[in-house]
């Protein structure tokens, strides 16, 4: 049932030192170190994983980590490989994969830079995507109290009509 997935995972494991498992049919999860990212991604693209579906960030507040996830799809193998890597939450710096996937990666990295404050080294355009003149912290960080921010920014406690927003 998951024969081609197991075979491909074996192929990666002989090449690189990674943790990984076959999650289910057509799904492979890989956990890698962040300094190996570019090397592995380059190899993945050479092996048919040309489609970078998405990049996402998970904020693990208690561990102090950002988990960055790359979803790669191969049109030949029909497997979705999920590459996960952890970086520090306080100094979120990681190599950009725009050198591999180009504009495909560009828009994702730009968004994540805006929402989580991740610095993608090597990406030359990290201009804000949606938030113009934004002065607050990166809004998708879990320690950002957006309700508190909105109360300070938009509402006035002395205004009787706006008291409901302070309950």
């Amino acid at each position, binding site marked *: 049932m998951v024969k081609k997935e197991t075979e491909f995972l074996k192929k990666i494991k002989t090449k690189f030192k990674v943790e990984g498992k076959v999650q289910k049919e057509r799904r492979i999860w890989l956990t890698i170190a962040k300094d190996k990212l570019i090397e592995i991604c380059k190899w993945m693209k050479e092996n048919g994983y040309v489609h970078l579906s998405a990049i996402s960030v998970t904020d693990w507040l208690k561990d102090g980590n950002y988990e960055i996830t790359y979803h790669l799809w191969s049109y030949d193998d029909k497997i979705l490989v999920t590459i996960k890597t952890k970086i520090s939450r306080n100094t979120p710096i990681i190599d950009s994969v725009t050198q591999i996937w180009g504009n495909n990666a560009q828009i994702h990295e730009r968004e994540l830079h805006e929402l989580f404050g991740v610095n993608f080294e090597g990406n030359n355009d990290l201009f804000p995507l*949606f938030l113009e*003149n934004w002065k607050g912290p990166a*809004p998708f960080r879990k320690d950002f109290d*957006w*309700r508190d921010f909105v109360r300070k*920014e*938009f*509402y006035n406690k002395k205004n009787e009509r706006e008291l409901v927003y302070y309950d």
Partner: protein
Amino acid sequence: MMVKRSEKAKTMRKVIKAIWIFNWFNSCGFAELVPLVGSRWDMERFGMIIVGTPRHADVLFIAGYQTHKSIERAKRVYEQMAEPRVVIALGSCTMTGGMYWDSYNTIKKLDDYLPVTMYIPGCPPRPEAVFEACEKIFQHVKELE
């Protein structure tokens, strides 16, 4: 047989012939005004037309949640309109921030940013309410003169 028009309607017709509208809608905003375009409520019978550029428009319709990014564009649209100009804000979202009252990215009250002439409450406002607002525009312009 001649159709008898009321005095009010006659004076209205003297003041303006038609209302030309420029739409500036975010999120579900346009869905609120779609019935007006259709045959049932058909706004063109009152001379209300949607124009392609703010420079031709008398009325600016704003609906939906304005974000920090879109309000800057809305201001620019407003600045291009010729006097006398009227801003009509549709729906509860433009008044209070509506469902996203605690969102960091949307503005809460439109009149902090643009001089709103009239608010039409409702989520969405009924087409009849929009017509009534447009009737009031005629009065408003008469007062301006």
